[in-house]
């Protein structure tokens, strides 16, 4: 993916360029472009409980952006705000240089934002292939009548999208299970199918909520490889929540650290490692 045209965001959104790093090329040769998603002063409350308190951060095109924090820090809530599932009481979400109005989750999906879930949210009654095909539903244009008669666009679309989906199946190495009902698969493979479904949507922004939770070392290595490959080959921007510090520090370009609904750190993995507030949150502080 090429970096966004630099004019479009600047015209509509002068604030975006202020704080952010300029577009650059990383050490391993990946293009980091302009700001793709900008979260500005987000506050989310559930009744009296403040889940997210005045958090701002941005995600740049082509980067892998991690959100970390102890349990209950508000990471998943943040992801739900990003995917339109929760509506924040205060703050703005900017996407591709435009302020995103309040949207239903299925409208957000059409903007090019796909995600996976902490607890796998696959369609158990459908085969792996059908599950991944659902990822392309937003691109299907044929009418109900055409589908009923399996005629014209309906059939062409089915074949065309099947080809695309097969590429993702190859990419994630799940060819042998494509006709298996998802309910019968082991946990690690389900996580992979869920990633495939999100990828099938060809998202601009891919959000992964704990993609490696409950996996053994080998499976984590596989998943890390897939995440890096997705970022590298398709140029997909990735937002990632993960608990495994080793994985986060290795994979991500920049990290946001949350604790009790506040942002306590934001920067490259090296900066985060040496941030005293982050160390305190993770290792605890001695109380006198």
């Amino acid at each position: 993916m090429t970096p966004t045209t630099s004019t479009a965001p600047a015209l509509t959104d002068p604030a975006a360029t202020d704080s952010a790093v300029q577009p650059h090329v990383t050490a391993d040769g990946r293009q980091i472009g302009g700001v793709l998603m900008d979260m500005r002063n987000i506050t989310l409350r559930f009744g009296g409980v403040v889940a997210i308190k005045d958090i701002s951060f941005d995600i740049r095109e082509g980067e892998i952006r991690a959100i970390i924090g102890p349990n209950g820090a508000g990471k998943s809530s943040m992801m739900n705000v990003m995917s339109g599932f929760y509506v924040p009481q205060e703050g703005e979400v900017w996407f591709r240089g435009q302020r995103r109005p309040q949207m239903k989750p299925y409208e957000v999906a059409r903007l090019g934002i796909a995600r996976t879930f902490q607890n796998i949210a696959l369609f158990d009654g459908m085969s792996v292939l059908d599950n991944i095909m659902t990822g392309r539903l937003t691109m299907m244009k044929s009418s109900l009548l055409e589908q009923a008669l399996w005629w014209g666009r309906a059939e062409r679309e089915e074949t065309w999208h099947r080809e695309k989906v097969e590429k993702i199946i190859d990419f994630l190495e799940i060819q042998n299970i494509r006709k298996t009902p998802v309910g019968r698969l082991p946990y690690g493979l389900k996580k992979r199918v869920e990633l495939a479904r999100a990828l099938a949507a060809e998202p601009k922004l891919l959000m992964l909520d704990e993609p490696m939770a409950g996996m053994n070392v080998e499976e984590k290595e596989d998943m890390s490889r897939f995440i890096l490959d997705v970022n590298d080959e398709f140029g997909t921007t990735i937002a990632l929540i993960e608990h495994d510090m080793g994985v986060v520090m290795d994979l991500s370009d920049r990290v946001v650290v949350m604790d009790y609904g506040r942002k306590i750190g934001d920067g490259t993995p090296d900066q985060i490692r040496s941030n005293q507030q982050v160390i305190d949150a993770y290792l605890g502080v001695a109380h006198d």
Partner: protein
Amino acid sequence: MLYREAGDFKTSYREDSQTFPLRLDRWGYYATLAVAFLVIPLVINDYWANAVLVPFLVYSIAALGLNILTGYAGQVSLGTGGFMAVGAYATYKLSTSFPDISILIHILLAGGITAVVGMLFGLPSLRIKGFYLAVATLAAQFFLVWLFNKVPWFYNYSASGQITAPERTVLGWFVTGPQTSAPAKYLVCLVFAVGLAWIARNLTRGTVGRKWMAIRDMDIAAEIIGVNPLTAKLTAFAVSSFFVGVAGALFFSVYLGAAEVGEAFGINKSFLILFMVIIGGLGSIFGSFAGAAFLVLLPVLLKNVLVGTLGWPTDLAAHIELMIVGALIVVFLIVEPHGLAQLWRLTKEKLRLWPFPH
């Protein structure tokens, strides 16, 4: 040995996504169609048409409709009888008001009218789920029956409150009314059943079917990947009601000839069709036919055995029959909760390996 997929290679995705990917299945399907269209019409008599084949085909269409809604889209409905009544009364009003237009078109239009009514009663599904939705559709059932009883316009102010199918022909053959021959009745229902089953299959293997199943399996995830729950649920209600409406139209005009709404389309009908769908297998086209066959044929079979072979008095046999059918349904659901379709799938799995155990 006999039933296997070895050597049956697919070289395009189009071939791979066809309805019967296995050659043997395909031949079986063509053979069934050939027998149904070419052989049965020649040998059918009034008894077979009225007691077995016509009700089987009509109930299959209704079961297909409910299966789309409940089995594929996961929305429970107890309003099937009411929606069948809409189809029946719509055909009646249309065919008496516009006698020059073919009854076949009226039947399809009646399906369309039922689709609109079904969407209307499907609106609560956007807010409520499961048992609560079932209760809401139950309200539709009672309301529609009440409506057709209370408003004389629907039955053209006839003194008995009944509706009677006018005599209509297709290509010079009577298809409704007392002069209709057994093959004509059967063929009309067969054409509708085969056509609608084909449409159901097309819809469920493509985009809209995936939307329905996504909503059924996990509505939140479905919404996150871009399924609009409003349109997905309402199309399910519309398509399902179309099928049920056509079934109601055929049930009244071709099968019964005359109907009284509470008797023909009461709550019993809703439950009967729900049983067919559950016994046949939720989310299966074949299951809809299997379930309908099971519940239509079983009573006929029992009656023949009890009265014909064992020589029991008819009234006793009728009561025992109800008990046996009920008991069989319970036994069946315990043994195979996923229905006849699953049983069929398992049989095919076994056949693939037979005579070897692994």
